[in-house]
């Protein structure tokens, strides 16, 4: 029962991070800040959802697979974020200033 409640809360907070990431992608002024928003959804949002589902998993195999998916997304997300940001800088995109 308690596990179900914890799962529910984690899922909801995770979904909230996805919402925040999406809104950030829409509202932030330039590539660099949007990257920041995107990685929140990638890392934290998915992470929370994965942890929630791990609590409900019925075998260690499923737990492992979920963890692998998250690690892959973490790796890919951070790698790609770096690539995009450094390429943007090389191409001369100026970071937004107030």
């Amino acid at each position, binding site marked *: 029962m308690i596990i*179900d409640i914890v*799962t*529910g809360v984690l*899922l*909801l907070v*995770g*979904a909230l991070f*996805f*919402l925040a*990431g*999406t*809104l950030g*992608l*829409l509202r932030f002024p330039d*590539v660099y800040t*949007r*990257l920041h928003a*995107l990685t929140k*959804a*990638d890392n934290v*949002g*998915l992470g929370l*959802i*994965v942890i929630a*589902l791990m609590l*409900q998993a019925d075998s260690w195999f*499923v737990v492992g*697979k*979920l963890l*692998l*998916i998250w690690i*892959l*997304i973490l790796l*890919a*997300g951070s*790698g*790609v974020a770096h*690539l*995009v940001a450094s*390429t*943007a800088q090389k*191409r*001369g*995109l100026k970071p937004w200033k107030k």
Partner: protein
Amino acid sequence: MDTLYLSLALFLLLTLLVGMWRIFQGPTPADRMLAAQLFGTTAVACLLLLAQALEEQALRDVALVFALLAVVTAVAFVKRAWTAKDDH
């Protein structure tokens, strides 16, 4: 519990729809591509929720493959398609 999973999956699909605006708007190619990246992650989360709700193991494999393939498109974009002429 299943209702929660399904409503969250639907919710994620809706955030995806909203995020589509960035693909339309740009302005730089990178912005469009970032939106597509977010699409990939959202789809992974959606698949994991569906896998739990519908009790279908295979959907986790689909999510795994999604997670892998997202990198390939992103790298293809950075290394090949992002050319200076497109930046405004």
